[in-house]
């Protein structure tokens, strides 16, 4: 799923400062699972924003609603007119973008879209994929070097690894894990083979994917 994180209240207030009536719009798919865009989060955020505005002596009204998926037009069409002059979207970047395209008032992002991740426990997600457009997981025992190695290198580990920890000090070294897992899987040739530089053009050139007109994949 897409993992997201709510922006700080002050940053949100700054964005919507010039508006009078704002609809906070949750997204009931990834965002809700990431505990940032479901019904409960929308209500809590509305309450917090009301409190913060009144403390500042401002007068902005905040209402809340939740769409099933902000990245699909049919769900956006369900939105009812409510006299709002701005949306605060709690959907990922795709949700914000589609809302902006379909609606004629400004849409602001209330969350930051972090990564495609997997659940690692209660309210805890690990970054697993950055949608690079050319998956190499088959060569790296299912551990993504693009996402989990901060350098995104293809022939690791780098000299920064220390006791299996990454030089950034906040995570295990992805490449040590890749080597260990490849050994466990008996895929030793993947350890000794040099991986070619990645093709970044895939990410740049794939800007739309229309299954009815697949075209040619490079």
């Amino acid at each position, binding site marked *: 799923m897409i993992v997201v994180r709510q922006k700080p209240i002050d940053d949100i207030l700054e964005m919507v400062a010039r508006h009078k009536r704002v609809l906070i719009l949750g997204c009931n798919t990834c965002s809700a699972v990431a505990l940032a865009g479901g019904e409960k989060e929308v209500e809590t955020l509305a309450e917090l924003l009301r409190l913060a505005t009144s403390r500042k002596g401002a007068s902005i009204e905040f209402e809340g609603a939740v769409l099933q998926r902000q990245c699909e037009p049919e769900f956006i069409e369900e939105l009812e007119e409510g006299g709002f002059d701005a949306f605060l979207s709690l959907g990922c970047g795709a949700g914000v973008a589609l809302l902006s395209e379909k609606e004629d008032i400004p849409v602001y992002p209330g969350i930051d879209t972090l990564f495609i991740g997997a659940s690692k426990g209660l309210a805890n997600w690990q970054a697993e994929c950055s949608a690079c457009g050319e998956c190499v997981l088959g060569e790296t025992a299912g551990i993504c070097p693009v996402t989990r190695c901060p*350098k995104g290198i293809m022939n690791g580990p*780098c*000299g920064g*690894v220390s006791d299996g920890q990454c030089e*950034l000090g906040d995570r295990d070294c992805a490449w*040590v894990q890749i*080597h260990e897992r490849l050994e466990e899987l008996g895929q030793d040739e993947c350890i000794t083979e*040099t991986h070619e*530089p990645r093709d970044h053009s895939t990410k740049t050139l794939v800007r739309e994917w229309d299954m009815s007109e697949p075209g040619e994949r490079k």
Partner: protein
Amino acid sequence: MSLRAAFAEGRFAVSSEVGPPTGTDVSEMLETADMLHGRVDALNVTDNQAAVMRLSTIAACIHLKQHGHDPVFQVTCRDRNRLGLQSDLLGAASFGITEVLALTGDHVVVGDHPEAAAVFDLESVQLLDTVATLADGSDLAGNELTGSPEFFVGAVVTPDANPIRPQLAKFEKKVRSGARFFQTQAVYDAESFLRFMEYARQFDVRVLAGLVVPRSARMARFMNKNIPGITVPNAIIEELDASEDPVQTGVDVTGRFIREVREHCDGVHIMAIGAEHLVPRVLDAAGL
């Protein structure tokens, strides 16, 4: 002198390093280089070392060369994509700067511009491949070069890395990708270094033992804790602790290490990190 020449003549090679300034005044860097002249075969010129912004490495190499020194051009993959790296390698070679040390480079997050984009389009192994491609007369896109460089290229290895297996797998990739010489991360334990040399001797590469003079017990402990792949043995820390002149003790310890490994490796690379004046003293202590 140069590393290439030292190896060709079968001499025990000595290299050290200088860091370009944060600004345009290169006088201090040149003074340091002059002070080391005649005592070292080559000087590594660092490349925004530790992700801290400095004057361009190529410019610094040119200054050094114009003053009669032999630079080793350190190239990291942090700040340039494959176009930038190839351009710079060709640019350096056009000035006769052909001794290159290929590095991945520290992440920008650990440096002084942590908000910068980290590039890492290639890393050390792919950079070595790139150097080989250029030397073969074409670029990575297959375009033919007008005038192709003859590089003498090296890489780094961490003999005390933990875990060691991935490190050695990468070392072997670097050998296959054309690394002719290696500089090691700082080593202190002669026995463990000699074990590494026994392994490295299977390959047709020259190895320079990396040295950092421990100037105090505090510095040694700091390195153990904070610098990946460095292990200063307790015996040395105790020696430094007990000493009335820890700097001299550090110089002696380093000199002793060189004497112990001299017959088993091809040279030393002394990383002075701000204490270049100690380099001649270390060489004296080692009888070099």
